[in-house]
């Protein structure tokens, strides 16, 4: 059977699916509906079987979180094509166009679909460019502390003993430092900016990842396949890199995906407080802060950035949830 005949049938949303709980059925739009994939995820082994014995009926039923993936898709679309799709320059505005309402409101024009702010800048274009800042900062933070946390967690869990104790006590100490105050300090010294945020949270965030990775590698190192790798003569580094790490990489990906949502909110909060990116940046949090004083007569200045944050966070969280289920090896065993 050629791979092109990819069976793809979506369960009817109005019919209750007996395989799922009521909750999963009712909130199907959040969890996503189930689709049949034939030979998509296990294409390689499938081909192998075809060559050898009879092609076994390999079926993988996977639910697809359409809402989550849709939100995420929209987000990444705006990140990638920001320059192409934004109708105006996000930083330039004409004061003559100040605080125009969205196109469908009375007095709005189709030139500015979502209206303009008090400096006459296009809200839509600012939102589109704001997605880049959100992604840059959140991914920067997570790449920074994720890497640090994974490396320290692996070393800690794998070597055990005194090294483990020192790293973990360091993690305890670290978690007790107040991050916001450190950010205030750094912002005071170096000035508030995206770089300051990335560095502060990059330094502050690792204990969380470190603890989880340590826990996982602690249990993995007792597993028989690690003992067998020793018997075969593997070095510690090789065991860590090729046996322990691949078994925790899923956890890290899932953590990171869910974390990004949280960090986007955090960045918005910081910008709102004036600790994050500075004007004329088009960060969503900053847009909220700027629009706050005009909320009584220019509701679009706070509403649209708010919606943008919700969409991005929802996209990352739902997808992260889905990844957790998909990448769980037990899922495949069933």
């Amino acid at each position, binding site marked *: 059977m050629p791979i092109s005949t990819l069976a793809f049938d979506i369960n009817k949303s109005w019919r209750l699916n*007996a*395989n799922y*709980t009521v909750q999963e059925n009712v909130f199907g739009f959040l969890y996503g509906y*189930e689709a049949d994939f034939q030979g998509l995820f296990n294409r390689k082994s499938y081909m192998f079987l075809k060559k050898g014995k009879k092609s076994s009926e390999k*079926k993988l*039923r996977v639910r697809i979180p359409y809402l989550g993936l849709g939100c995420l898709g929209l987000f990444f679309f705006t990140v990638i094509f920001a320059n192409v799709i934004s109708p105006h320059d996000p930083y330039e505005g004409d004061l003559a166009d100040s605080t125009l309402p969205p196109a469908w409101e009375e007095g709005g024009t189709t030139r500015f679909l979502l209206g303009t702010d008090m400096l006459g800048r296009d809200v839509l274009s600012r939102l589109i460019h704001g997605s880049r800042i959100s992604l840059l900062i959140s991914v920067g933070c997570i790449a920074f502390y994720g890497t640090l946390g994974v490396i320290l967690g692996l070393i800690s869990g794998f070597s055990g003993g005194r090294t483990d104790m020192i790293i973990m006590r360091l993690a305890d100490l670290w978690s007790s430092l107040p991050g916001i105050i450190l950010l205030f300090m750094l912002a005071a010294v170096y000035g508030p900016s995206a770089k300051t945020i990335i560095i502060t949270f990059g330094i502050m965030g690792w204990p969380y990842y470190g603890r989880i990775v340590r826990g996982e590698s602690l249990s993995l190192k007792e597993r028989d396949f690690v003992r067998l790798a020793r018997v075969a003569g593997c070095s510690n580094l090789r065991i860590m890199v090729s046996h322990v790490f691949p078994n925790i990489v899923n956890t890290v990906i899932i953590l990171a995906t869910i974390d990004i949502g949280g960090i986007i909110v955090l960045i918005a909060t910081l910008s709102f407080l004036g600790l994050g990116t500075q004007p004329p940046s088009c960060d969503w949090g900053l847009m909220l802060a700027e629009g706050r004083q005009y909320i009584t007569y220019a509701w679009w200045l706070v509403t649209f950035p708010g919606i943008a944050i919700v969409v991005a966070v929802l996209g990352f969280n739902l997808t992260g949830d889905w990844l957790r289920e998909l990448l769980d090896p037990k899922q495949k065993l*069933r």
Partner: protein
Amino acid sequence: MKDKQLDTENEELLVLKDVKTSFFTKKGVVRAVDGVNFTISKGEVVGLVGESGCGKSITSLSIMRLVPQPAGKIVSGEILFKNEDLLKKSEDEMRRIRGDRISMILQDPMVSMNQLLKVGYQLGEPYRYHHKVSGSLREMCIGLLKKVKVPAPESRVNDYPFQFSGGMCQRALIAMGIANGPDLLIADEPTTALDVTIQAQILKLMKDIQRESRSSIILITHDLATVAQICSRLLVMYGGRIIEKAPVKTFYKKPAHPYSVGLIKSVPVLGRPSGRLYSIDGQPPSLLDPPSGCRFAPRCTQAKKPCFEIYPPETILEEGHKVSCWLY
């Protein structure tokens, strides 16, 4: 007909009629128990033997109506306990039966107990719940521990489970199981997690308790030797169905089903001269959408064409010895 009369004389305690329990998973329907019939009489010790994944544990959970929700469901059949259908009872009525009339002992003694509560407290739990009394019931618990031969029960009541060894824990769990004098005790692999010398002690204890209390026991195990030691009758389960029912003595002398024969031959026996062990080739069947024919046919050396197509009916070989196989 004759068979049925005999059973009534012996006072049927538990009758399973065509019980089917399935698990509705994302990959399809797993027919874990696929039409199981058997009868347990009063005061009888019956062994339910099978390999992992053959449905023996799910059978016991079906009797207790504790099949894991929401995936698992008892699809059809009747479970008559003292002539009342357990499947028609409400959850409230079931709760009154569980732990009082039917109780259960599980495989791993160390995880079957709550590590945070004293052994004495946990021992009294079934009695406290079913007789609506409160208090520590210290005297009763000491009595129970004495019954299961735990040394120094007066001080042991106040211990926590982690202070007990594996064998001791299993004794305490047995004590918990018999606290209310149940009519039926289901023991799911009670000795598998224990050492050989402790195993022998626990089996002896169960035998003694059964003799004293006259309650029925269903012993679920993969180990044919354990069954031989304490059961009077055994049921062999394979692929979600019971394929052979026989009195223990008949079974070990003249096993009928090719699977039973292979099972007995494939266990290494102490003192038997070495040589190749008999082995059943192939793997146990998947219960996910099983074929309509005999489940054992793909591994059976004597399988013929009908074996793959139609499930064999139960044939009576002699008094109490029934087998589901086309060879008979």
